[in-house]
């Protein structure tokens, strides 16, 4: 059964069968990644452009590796944000790339809605690698993959997204994807970092981290972007760590074996204590490997649609 959409712009509205198919396909590729020769010829002759209008090392490398593992020809196109802030060259750039007969475009952009715009001016399959504070669907998929790998299911689980939900592209993708797969989703963070009306998405809002730990099976801890504007939304890093940081004592106090995910890199001593971070290294590295497998699955399923 093929995917129902030829682009992956977000997880909003993506049917359960599609998510299931991507996760199952990722499992197959996960095995490929354990082989001595980690390359399959599936996308031979296909050209994928990684169009990154915002600096991102990990996501870009993950996509690039996924493309190489599938034998696609990949081209990296990184543009500094300053030259696009005026907006003048964006369409021309896309038309240029289009003229090179590419099959797929993986796009990262600081402005929400850019991947949707690309679908209107390009015939290629578009994969959103993060648009502003909107969505980051492959991150959402790999989080779900990691949860399923570890806990053998998603349906019926209680998952809490912790941190700066308002300025996160990962939060929405997680919310949409997890809810579609039958999980119960909550968010936890300082109230200044919880976006307006998020409850209307069927998400519980929790302001107490202990309550979040007690109530949930999984915590997906977002990275606090200290370098960004987010810093204006809480009084001090010390206060954030004190009231929302996840520490060994907190986990012990609540006496729970809880799965913690983190997209990395961790701000040690902020969202996670050093001790918790150390204990987590294993799964975070696994998340990275899973990321390649999930992206291979998405590229493969979209690239072989036509």
């Amino acid at each position, binding site marked *: 059964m093929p995917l129902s959409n030829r682009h992956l712009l977000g997880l*909003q509205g993506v049917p359960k069968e599609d998510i299931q198919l991507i996760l199952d396909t990722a499992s197959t590729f996960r095995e490929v990644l354990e082989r001595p020769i980690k390359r399959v010829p599936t996308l031979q002759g296909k050209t994928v452009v990684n169009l990154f209008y915002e600096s991102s090392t990990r996501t870009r490398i993950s996509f690039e590796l996924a493309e190489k593992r599938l034998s696609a020809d990949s081209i990296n196109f990184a543009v500094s944000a300053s030259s*696009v*802030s*005026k*907006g*003048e060259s*964006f*369409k021309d750039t896309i038309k240029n790339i289009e003229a090179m007969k590419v099959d797929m475009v993986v796009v990262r*952009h*600081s*402005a*929400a*809605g*850019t991947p*949707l*715009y690309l679908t209107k001016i390009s015939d290629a399959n578009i994969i959103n690698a993060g*648009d*502003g*504070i*909107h*969505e980051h669907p492959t991150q959402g998929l790999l989080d779900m993959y990691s949860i399923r790998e570890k806990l053998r299911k998603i349906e019926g689980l209680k998952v809490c997204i912790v941190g700066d939900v308002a300025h996160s*592209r990962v939060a*929405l993708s997680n919310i949409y994807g997890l809810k579609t797969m039958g999980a119960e989703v909550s968010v936890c963070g300082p109230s200044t970092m919880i*976006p*307006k*009306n*998020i409850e*209307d*998405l069927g998400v519980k809002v929790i302001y107490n981290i202990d309550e979040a730990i007690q109530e949930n099976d999984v915590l997906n801890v977002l990275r606090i972007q200290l370098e960004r504007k987010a810093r204006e939304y809480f009084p001090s890093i010390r206060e954030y760590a004190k009231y929302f940081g996840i520490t060994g004592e907190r986990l012990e106090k609540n006496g729970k074996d809880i799965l913690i995910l983190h997209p990395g890199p961790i701000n040690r001593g902020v969202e996670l204590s050093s001790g918790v971070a150390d204990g987590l290294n294993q799964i975070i590295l696994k998340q990275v490997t899973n990321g390649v497998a999930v992206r291979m699955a998405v590229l493969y399923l979209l690239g072989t649609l036509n």
Partner: protein
Amino acid sequence: MKVILKNVSLFHPVQKIDEKGIDILLTDGVISKIGKINPEEISGVKVFDLSNKHIVPGFFDMHVHLREPGREDEETVQSGCNAAANGGFTGIACMPNTEPAIDSAEVVSFIKKQSKDHLVDVEVIGAATLGRKGEYISPMAELYEAGVVGFSDDGVAIKTSGILKRAFEYSKMYNVPIIEHCEDETLSGGAMNEGLNSTMLGLPPIPSVAEELIVIRDILLAEYTGGKIHIAHLSTKKSVEMVREAKQKGISVTSEVTPHHFTLIDDSLKTYDTNFKMNPPLRTKADVDEILLGLKDGTIDCIASDHAPHSAEEKEAEFEHAPNGITGLETQVGLALTELYHKKIITLGQLIEKMSINPRKILNLPVPNFEVGQIANFTILDLTEIFTFDINRSKSKSKNSPFDKRLLTGKALGVINKSKMFYQDEFLNL
């Protein structure tokens, strides 16, 4: 030249005229007879059969951005006036956020000169503060003498309460209103209304309270100083409620709404189409409902387009980076008739008051009258023509409208003013 407008429905809400089957004789653009006229008795007369068409006092749009001087690639006084005539307006007021801003008599004279020979009257709103920077009040006396009819820093609110108080006190000498774009800039800076939609679209939000805080500040300061405040393009439920309450208290406050704020809501942004990006942003259904109520009960005095032409290059950008604003001169009449008149929100009389009478009264301009000896200042309407708005037929230099291909009921067929007529896509001298 003599012209007969044959068999018209003549309608004037202030003069209480509502008559069908009227003929009007114009001599060199002046009304010389109203009643039954036999064309055969007048030699060389040109007859326009306007059966089933309405003639109403010429429409006036008090909130237009002409972009000249400074951005003549987007609009000029000439092209803006052509769009106004095409949209059914005989008069417009242009906002001062040009480059340079309209904060000196020279710029006022320049605009007046550019529009001198056009059918459309161009009235000028002067900047309330020098360079619209909110630091010092503009030379209001000199601007007033040059013909300015209102003061505004439109695009932004007057920056501080202190400078606004002074602007009220000073402008009071000339009984000229302060027109405010109400937005607390410490709360705004986003790209759309704050709510579930902004959360879901991942677009930086503008809370409705950013507008409301300045509305209430302005009302309080107008009351305190005795100045006149006109709230431009109000867009939220609370803004309407506060203006209603202020009017009940007898404070000198008037307000306007744009057609897009009574027609569209923020659900329209789901495609990230930048033609739906404007400031104030599109709000929610609850806001629109209150706006409709405000139009009905008279809280909202005027309908104004906030016609804001932008070049295609600038508008075709990422949503967050695209400039705010849409063109509106040529869709306003159709939208007001479709959404307000035909849906029985307001009567034709109310519609004409909000689009012709009230804006002129607020700006202390004479209201066109249907009397022998008066210069004809008419808008010709077909209340029932159904048509599809086509942006490619717009006379504006810019094409940034969310209403392209929209089906509308009711159309402005032409205008007459200053001894000129625009009808069937042609200008002619009367």
